[in-house]
């Protein structure tokens, strides 16, 4: 159902996102409120001025590539402490913390195989640990925690479709196993 979500969310989320991009890239477009959409192929005076305006550097636009200028400038309009320019920057201790957690979980998942939890039990535990590890990688290494939520939605969609594909196919196959067993029994057992 998560595929439905973007449908429902889009009207709200997308214009907002577009507006955000627009706002950060150029001054707000001149107001056209109430006016009928123009269809000329040449720009009106107003639009031309808009164009020229958008070419003007904004006060907080980075002036040069590289260096701390851009980064420092970005700080001024962003409340988030770790943002450098275009995206969030991971603090080093957090990176190492995540690695340690991942390594510990790896050891744990190996260790747990020596304990018998039943055929399915071990598989469930192993998959649970793998999922925790995957979640750690996604959240921190892949910055999903700070990223645009749409990217998270996309990723979860892929997982949803994977599960859908897997479950329907496996379920159908399970229903049919008897027909295969019966065939084998007759072909090899009886004859």
């Amino acid at each position, binding site marked *: 159902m998560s595929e439905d979500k973007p449908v429902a969310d889009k009207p709200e989320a997308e214009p907002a996102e577009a507006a955000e991009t627009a706002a950060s890239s150029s001054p707000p477009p001149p107001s056209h409120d109430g006016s009928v959409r123009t269809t000329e192929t040449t720009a009106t005076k107003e639009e031309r001025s808009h164009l020229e305006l958008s070419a003007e550097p904004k006060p907080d636009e980075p002036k040069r590539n590289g260096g701390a200028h851009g980064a420092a400038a970005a700080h001024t309009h962003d409340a988030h402490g770790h943002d450098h320019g275009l995206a969030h920057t991971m603090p080093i201790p957090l990176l190492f913390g995540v690695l340690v957690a991942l390594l510990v979980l790896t050891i744990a998942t190996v260790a747990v195989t020596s304990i018998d939890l039943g055929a399915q039990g071990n598989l469930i535990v192993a998959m649970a640990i793998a999922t925790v590890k995957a979640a750690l990688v996604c959240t921190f290494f892949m910055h999903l925690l700070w990223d645009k939520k749409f990217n998270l939605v996309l990723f979860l969609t892929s997982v949803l479709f994977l599960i859908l594909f897997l479950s329907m196919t496996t379920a159908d196959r399970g229903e049919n196993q008897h027909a*295969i067993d019966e065939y084998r029994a007759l072909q090899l057992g009886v004859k």
Partner: protein
Amino acid sequence: MTQLLALLAEPTLPKLAPSDSFWLPVDASVTTRNIDWVWDFLVWISVLTALAIFVAMFHFVTKYKAKSRAANEHAEKSAEHNTALEITWSVLPLFVVIALFVWGFKGFVDLRTPPKDAMELHANAQKWKWTFDYQCARGGLTDDTLHVPVDRPVRMLISSVDVLHALYIPSFRTKMDAVPGRYTDMWFQATKPGEYPIFCAEYCGTSHSDMLSRVVVHPPGEYETWLKGACEKADSLVGPERGKKLYSQQGCETCHTIDGTPKIGPTWKGLFGKTESITGGPALKVDENYLRESMMDPTAKVVQGFAPSMPTYKGKLSDKDIDGLIEYIKTLK
């Protein structure tokens, strides 16, 4: 009876019996009971829907046709949407499709649930031949035509030895894939004695379209007579006669000719005693042992220039059958 056996020896194309429906072939099984009236309903509702759409389309096109571009006409003001109308045309089809789903589901479950007392027959598919197994008093009988009694439910247990095929009897409105490595099943209960065509409906290669057969529906009591006669005949045949019958019944003829032309496999004419070169092995002289091995383990020694595509006949041929076939091949000089 003799006529039927003559047909067996000389396979001809099955004939479609004349049907009183324009769309569907003649209805000859109880399994059509949940299909045909739904079909009629579908046809009518589709015709009505399509007509409504087409009439509206043509009406609008003629009524609102613009004179010319230069006239610069503007569309009349009309609503950009109309909630009542939109809900109507969403909900109405919804009811129709819900009904159709239920009917389709019922029909499907009916097709997939054979009655408990159904008589069981095996259908075997192979490239490009259907064979059907019957139970004789002693041993079994394999035939390339499906014989069934009228008014008795029959469950077909279907399997394939090579690729996918599908057993399709249009007059019974039923079809099921023959899947290698598993059994599938279908059932029917013939209502009218006569002959109906059987098709292979799942693409299976070169002679897919020649993988035809017939279902012969016997009038009450005659099925047993036929079976008894066929069993006796089959049992009494020995030597090359038996081999000759198996040649067509077991589908040997789809790959091996008896007139000297190579087909999918080597021709049987003059095969016995011939020296053949073998793919990836030394040449050998065709003798009884080689022929027997080729039937039981066909891919072990394949004659050069042919694909290892023959299925095994292990378990499908009795010793008597194998001997018969070998004797038959010996006669083909």
